[in-house]
């Protein structure tokens, strides 16, 4: 057990614990706030794994933007503040499929990696990742910019007020 292992275990336990609360809490707003904890501890795991740029983009985009958008949506749809019992459908099917997926993936990965030790490679600084994006992955990068534009236009078209009602 190296220091990285201990850090990864601690942050992973934090991510899983708060992830359980995201899908199990009966408070809408608290689900959003627990999502912040999950995403932040995942950013910490990225840092331990040496992917600095991904970690900070995660903090900027997920913790900063996506969660705020989710909380905005919670408020704009006049969700009930406080605990509500009407939040979940019957849990049995979801628990079965979700548990099967998690256990299946876990078993697959344990079978593939066992308790093997891999030395960490220094990687993931902004310089390295930037060079990879603009040398190797330049075309997908441009396609992504088109996708973002399409998503922007699509969101505007969908959320335009309907003619005749307003």
């Amino acid at each position: 057990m190296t220091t990285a292992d201990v850090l990864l275990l601690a942050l992973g336990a934090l991510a899983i614990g708060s992830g359980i609360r995201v899908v199990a809490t009966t408070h809408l707003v608290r689900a959003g706030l627990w999502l912040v904890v999950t995403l932040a501890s995942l950013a910490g795991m990225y840092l331990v794994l040496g992917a600095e740029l991904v970690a900070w983009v995660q903090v900027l985009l997920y913790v900063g933007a996506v969660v705020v958008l989710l909380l905005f949506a919670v408020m704009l749809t006049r969700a009930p503040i406080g605990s509500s019992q009407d939040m979940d459908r019957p849990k049995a099917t979801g628990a079965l499929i979700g548990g099967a997926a998690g256990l299946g993936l876990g078993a697959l990965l344990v079978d593939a990696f066992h308790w093997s030790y891999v030395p960490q490679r220094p990687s993931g600084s902004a310089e390295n990742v930037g060079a990879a994006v603009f040398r190797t992955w330049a075309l997908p990068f441009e396609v992504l910019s088109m996708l973002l534009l399409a998503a922007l236009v699509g969101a505007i078209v969908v959320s335009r007020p309907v003619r005749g009602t307003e």
Partner: protein
Amino acid sequence: MHPIIPYLVAAVLFGLGIYGVLVRRNAVLVLAAVELLLNAVNLVLVTADNTVTTTLPHSGSVFALFVIVLAAAEIGVGLAIVLQLYRLRGSIAADAVPLGERIPEDDVAPTDTPMSAS
């Protein structure tokens, strides 16, 4: 570093995300569970980038960045749809959305469909 630790965390998070997508009724919470799914995939990509030696270095980090961008686009369009659903029907319960093409006339007048807005 033992790569099985982050891989197992990712598997558990993926299972939790699937559970959340299937069980939650509120559409905003379904989107939050989708974020859990995408983050599990990201964790696998970053771990693989850090532990596997490839001919193209740092591709895992690049793909993780791409997935984050896709998640941002997805959440934007998804929340626009959710808000429009709330405006039309006054409720965002995921299991109360009519799945057929025909919209019940006593619920919504025909001119209120999104098609007529474009």
